[in-house]
């Protein structure tokens, strides 16, 4: 049976970076979660869910996003959940951990000087915890394994 991967990314650069990660999912069934319905166009042929965006500026949508993500995880039952950030991806990893799924956090390449706030919190919920900058890697993590550029 094919492994199922749930790929979660918020908008803009997070989504663009997820699109550059897609070749890593070859041989898997991939289901995408984005924060804008129009991103469906980018993943023609794959299942796609749009959820409400969450950020420090969109805190009110947190319960709805959490509920939506929980529903998607329970329905899809992926073996692996991968995110390129930001806050919605962190929520997805926290829920995935509770459900015993394996998790990957890839911090955005935009975070050159320090990990994002969500990226720092992701440490507790990511089995593979990555930065895209060698100078941000530490012995206790995050690891640097390459970049999406």
């Amino acid at each position, binding site marked *: 049976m094919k*492994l199922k*991967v749930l790929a979660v990314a918020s*908008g*803009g*650069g*997070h*989504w*663009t*970076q997820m699109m*550059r*990660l897609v*070749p*890593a*999912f*070859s*041989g*898997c069934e991939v289901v995408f979660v984005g924060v*804008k319905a*129009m*991103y469906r*166009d*980018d993943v023609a042929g794959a299942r796609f869910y749009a959820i409400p965006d969450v*950020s*420090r*500026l969109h805190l009110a949508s947190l319960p709805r996003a959490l509920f939506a993500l929980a529903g998607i995880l329970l329905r899809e039952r992926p*073996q*692996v959940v*991968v995110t390129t950030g930001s806050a919605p991806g962190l929520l997805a990893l926290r829920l995935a951990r509770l459900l015993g799924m*394996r998790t*990957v956090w*890839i911090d*955005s*390449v*935009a*975070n*050159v*000087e320090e990990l*994002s*706030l969500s990226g720092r919190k992701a440490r507790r919920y990511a*089995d*593979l915890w*990555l930065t*895209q900058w060698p100078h941000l890697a530490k012995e206790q993590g995050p690891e640097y*394994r*390459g*970049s*999406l*550029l």
Partner: protein
Amino acid sequence: MKIFLTVGSMLPFPRLVRAVDAWAAQTPQAEVFAQIGDGAETPQHFPSSPMLAPKSYRQHFAEADLVVSHVGMGTVITAAELGRPLLLLPRRPDLGEVTSGHQLATAQWLRDKPGITIAEEVAQLLSLLDAGAWRSGRIDVASHARTDLLQAVRQFIHSS
């Protein structure tokens, strides 16, 4: 000259849009189209749209002689993929344009790359536009590092 002005998907960027709007009023030969974000005030001197679907976004991008934007990775990666030059103004957290200073840090990293010109301030952005003085060349931020990362993630997925 065709200019595509885009502020990304998160937040409007009125400081940038107003500046280009004022410049366009003085520069009738410039043909500007703008993506300005949800709920932003509409510019007076060129057509705009709050959001663009990915296909339409890429089309405007590909047809532009210059893309004017914030220091967003969506913009930078798309420019590298499509080979368009960028003129960028970093969003500032002290003006409420973004929640962290990461655009200023990213601007430092991108500053000397071919195909990317960073303006510190609106006035500098406008004089660069007037002079046509942005850096040409193809943005090359790509490297073998992507192959490495794809391989690392693939390995992790199949390692259970």
